[in-house]
């Protein structure tokens, strides 16, 4: 579903990603881990189409197409969803309006009719219960005045309503108390399907106690320093990131 080849990305002339290779198949969950500043979030943002980054080399194919030929909105309509690390507040725009506009943009793109108000509300209410969100938050401006946990749950709600093919979750677990973490993890786990791929970007292993990934990748200094199964995450939890970084620095020097 997603094929990243030798991806180099820089911001303000500074190279953040220095040759990423990653293949994610439908039905798989991949965890991308790494210390702060390793380029995890950059990878997530570039895949969603943020334009403040410069792709200097490499390619990304999504469902066989050149991802970089698509605008952010085209990517969204084609089924890519990014759960933001810092969900953005939009004063004056009701949460439920954004859900509806996003879903309709996607349905229209696929040649489907708009959902009528009754079906739409039923769909949203159903998902709302699953992520444990208060219905009142639907009618408040997007993310404005939401607690940290409410913002993260709101991202999961959007994801659940939009049912993406490729979901990228950027540190969705950060800053959550244990109840919110459980709710968010359940929401993500419920999204697992044979025709969907999920990329979990995370600093900590604790989210992976709830969602067991097919593969774990460790990013260090803009490269994937190590890949493995779920046991790699537990090793990181035990040993920290320093040994991977040291190894990466070693390879970097050798190259």
């Amino acid at each position: 579903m997603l094929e990243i080849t030798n991806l180099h990305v820089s911001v303000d002339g500074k190279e953040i990603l220095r040759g990423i290779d990653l293949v994610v198949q439908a039905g798989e969950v991949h965890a991308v881990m790494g210390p702060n500043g390793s380029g995890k979030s950059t990878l997530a943002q570039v895949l969603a189409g943020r334009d403040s980054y410069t792709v200097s080399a490499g390619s990304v194919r999504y469902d066989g197409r050149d991802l970089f030929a698509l605008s952010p909105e085209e990517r969204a309509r084609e089924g890519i969803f990014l759960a933001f690390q810092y969900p953005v507040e939009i004063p004056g725009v009701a949460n439920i309006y954004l859900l509806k506009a996003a879903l309709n943009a996607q349905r229209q793109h696929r040649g489907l009719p708009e959902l009528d108000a009754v079906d739409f509300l039923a769909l949203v209410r159903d998902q709302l219960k699953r992520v444990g969100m208060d219905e009142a938050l639907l009618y408040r401006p997007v993310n404005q005045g939401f607690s940290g946990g409410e913002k993260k749950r709101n991202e999961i709600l959007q994801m659940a309503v939009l049912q993406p093919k490729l979901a990228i979750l950027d540190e969705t677990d950060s800053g959550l108390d244990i109840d919110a973490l459980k709710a968010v993890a359940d929401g993500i786990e419920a999204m697992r399907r044979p025709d969907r791929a999920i990329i979990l970007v995370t600093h900590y292993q604790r989210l992976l106690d709830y969602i067991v990934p097919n593969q774990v990748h460790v990013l260090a200094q803009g490269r994937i320093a190590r890949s493995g199964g779920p046991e790699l995450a537990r090793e990181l939890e035990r040993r920290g990131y320093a040994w991977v970084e040291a190894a990466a620095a070693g390879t970097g020097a050798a190259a």
Partner: protein
Amino acid sequence: MNAVADRPLGDYARLQAALPGQGLPWLERWRAEALAAFAASGYPTLRDEDWKYTSVAAIENAVFDLLPPAGAAPAEVSAKLGAAIEALALPGACLMVFVDGRYAPALSRLDALPAGVTVASLAETLARAPERLQAWLGRRQFHASPLAGFAALNAAGFADGAYVHVDQGVTLAAPLQLLFVASAEKLATHSRNLIVAEAGSRLDLIEQHAARGAAGYLSNVVSDLAVGPGAAIAHYKLQEEGARAFHVAAVNAELQQGSRFASASFAFGAALARTDIAVALAAENAECTLDGLYLADGRQHIDHHTRIDHLVPRGTSREFYKGVLAGAGRAVFNGKVVIHEDAQHSDAAQSNRNLLLSPLAEVDTKPQLEIWADDVKCSHGATVGQLDPEQIFYLRSRGLAAAAAQTLLTWAFAAEMVERVPLAALRERLDRLLRARLPQSGETLEVWP
């Protein structure tokens, strides 16, 4: 004498015979004084501090008719114009229509007014009961207004307007819509409204200026409002003049003990528009709220000058203006709050926020606080910003097109002012106008909130 002012002066002197109130010595004297004042001042220039950013050279150089074309008396308004005006009427409101500055009773609807309320044409009232007006008209010193020349021209040349008098303790349940429609090209109209709310009365007023059939003209209007003790007036000004029109307006309110005045100015139309709102908190415990929203696109120039005078202790004023500037649009906001020496325990807050959508758009904002008392609570602030790229990216990452994201965020910024309007029918109308006027609106949003 100002040479430039010669031509209009001559015209206005000749116009006198056609104006209402002939044979009323006090009015004739007042009009003559106004002409003399204009002769002395002429039109304001960029050298006047209050007109530093707004040139009226285009008005000065234009040639206007001072009387509507013969045979176009409002009574004979065409069916087409009548239908267009009907569409402007606000559901549920009492309606007073003025076409090209003249009252059009056939298009107006005043039957639902309660007892104790007088709503009449000013011209008609000058003919039938001038004594009701004498104490009020000319009470405000036109030469003291920053509108200067325009206020003088209005006094010298006003042909009609609304006279509204609400008796003590009477409440108008339905809003009163004063609808000024321009249909004649090149016409200069001077309209004058006098609104008197006696003690404890309540009134919601919508002063709307629109064009149907005309694009370029001058509309110069003065509205004086007297808010009696414990009375409450809400004044909504809706300016959607023609694309080449000049709009100059003054709103003057005087607040008595414990009264409330809520003003909201929505400025969407005209090529050049200037609105001055002056509020005097003349007795204790009076409260005013000044809201505003201006949109300038293309080459529009929209200027608001507001002045709130806290003259006595314990007055409260709140001011909140927002502006959206697109294309080569330009706006001026000058908000002055003066806390006079005796006005202890005054409470004043003022804020102006602007959204610039284009590198060619411009806003000159100047919130001003002048404080002569020492025990007061005052704040003011102004911001000029652009759409937030983080918000745009967030919306695009959810599938909204870039243009739709911009339209939605611009709408959300401006709609805050519309949502503050408590009258549902007016709020709906304003929101529809706002959507239609937003830059690159139309098809950009599949579905509106």
